[in-house]
C-alpha cells in the first residue's frame, strides 16, 4: 500500500482525515500514484494536475524520501521505501503568507 499525504484543503474535498492509502500497480511512479488517487477520489481531479495536459499545478510539489520529484518525469519510479509503504509520498502546497 502506498501512503500519500495530501494538503488539508484536499483532505476536506476528499472527505478523508490523515494520510490516504492506495493500491498502486507496479511500476509505482508519480503518474501511477496520481492516477490511483484520482480514481479513488475523483473530486480531486483537476486540483493537483491539469485536466487536459496532466501537468502539475504550479503551486504544488511532490516530495518523497527527502527528494523533490516535482520536476522529474512523472514516469520515474519512486523509491522502494514509498513502494513498500515505509515512507509516504507527499503532495505539498507552496508556502504563502505575510
Amino acid at each position, binding site marked *: 500500500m502506498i501512503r500519500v499525504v495530501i494538503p488539508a*484543503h484536499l483532505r476536506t474535498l476528499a472527505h478523508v482525515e490523515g494520510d490516504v492509502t492506495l493500491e498502486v500497480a507496479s511500476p509505482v511512479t508519480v503518474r501511477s500514484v496520481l492516477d490511483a488517487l484520482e480514481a479513488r477520489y475523483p473530486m480531486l481531479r*483537476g486540483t493537483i494536475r491539469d485536466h487536459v495536459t496532466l501537468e502539475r499545478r504550479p503551486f504544488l510539489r511532490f516530495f518523497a524520501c527527502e527528494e523533490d520529484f516535482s520536476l522529474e518525469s512523472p514516469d520515474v519510479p519512486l523509491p522502494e521505501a514509498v513502494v513498500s509503504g515505509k515512507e509516504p509520498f507527499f503532495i505539498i502546497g507552496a508556502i504563502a503568507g505575510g
Partner: protein
Amino acid sequence: MSKARVLVGTKKGAFILTADGKRQKWEVSGPYFAGWEIYHLKGSPVDPNRLYASQTSGWFGQIIQRSDDGGKTWFQPGTPPGEQATAPGGMPQGESNKFVYDSSPETGKPLTTHKWYDGSQHPWEFKRVWHLEPSLTDPNMVYAGVEDAALFVSRDGGKNWKEVAGLRGHGTGPQWQPGAGGLGLHTILLDPKNHNRMYIAISAAGAFRTDDGGKTWKPINKGLRSPYLPDQDAEIGHCVHRIALHPSRPDVVFMQKHWDVMRTDNAGDQWREVSGNLPTDFGFVIDVHAHEPETIYVVPIKSDGEHFPPEGKLRVYRSRTGGNEWEALTKGLPQQHCYVDVLRDAMAVDSFDPCGVYFGTTGGQVYASADDGDSWAPIVRDLPAVLSVEVQTVR
C-alpha cells in the same frame, strides 16, 4: 413565512445570512469551504434551495459546489460520494471542475491567444469562475463566466460544462486584453422576456449581446469612451465593471464602467453617460431597485489608483431618475476614516417591499438596508474581504 437569504462569497469562505421579512435580526452561518476563495454563490430563481458556488484557489484550481437544500449541505455535482469515477466505457466521468475551452473545428474559429498586458498575444488559460448565473427556467441549467474570459454552460446541474464558443469566436477575441484583475467574464444578464437574449460583460473587453441563445454575439459598446485606449471609441477594449437591468424592462441596461456610469435604452446599441452629480464616477457595483426600474444604486470609489470611498465616507448613491440626478445615502454608514472597497459582484437587492439593498466590502462588512437604501446597518462586520453578495427572497 418569507425570509431573506443573503449569500456572501469572501476571500476565505462563504457565509449565509438569513432573516425574516423585516430584515432586522440576522442569523449567520459559515464559513463554508473555509480557507478557499468563494468568488460567487447564486441560487436558482426556479428552485431557491438549489444553490451554486464557485470555490477557487491559486493552489488547487476551480471547484464547483452545489447545494439542494438552501445551503445546509454541499457537494461537487460531478462526483457525489459513492459515484463511480468512470463511465461504463471506461472514460472518466465529467467532473464539476472541468472547464476546457472549445477549440473544436465546429466552432469555426478555434482560438488560442488573446492580447496580453504588453500588447503581445498570450495563450488562453482557464483560471477560475468569476460568476454563476442560474437559468430563469431550469434549475439544472447554469452559466459560468470565467477567467480567461469565456462563457460556459452546464445543463445537468453543474456536472459537465461546455463552452458557449460563439462568444470567443465571434471575431474580436484575439484583441481582448485583461484588466488589472484579470481577463474575467464577470457579469451575465438573462433577459426574462426574450430567452434568446443575453448580455455579458468582460474586463477589459466590454459588453456583448446575443439574440440567438448564444450562437452569435456582437459587441455593444457604442457610446463608451475610455481614455486609456488608443481609440477612445473603440468597438472593444472598454473596462466595463458591472451591468444591471430591471426584469420588467430588459432593453434598459445600466453600467458602471471603470470611469463613467452609463445607460442604454435600446439593449446596448447606444450608451449615454448618466454620471451627473456623482462625486466620482469610478466604481464597481451598480444595481436596480426591485420595484422601481428607474431607481439605481452605485457606490462611488475615489479613483482607479485609490480604491476607497472619497473623503473616507462610505456612501451609496441612489438615482430615482435612471441616472444624472443622484442623492447620497449615508444613514448608518461610516462617514469618516472608511477606506474599504466594494467589488463588482458585491451588491444585490431583494424583492420585498420596501426593497432591501445589500452590499459587502473588502473590510468584511455586509451592510443591509430594508428601506430602499434610506438607512443602513451592518449584518456582520468582520468577515474576510467580501467578493460577492447575492440575496434570495424565499417565500
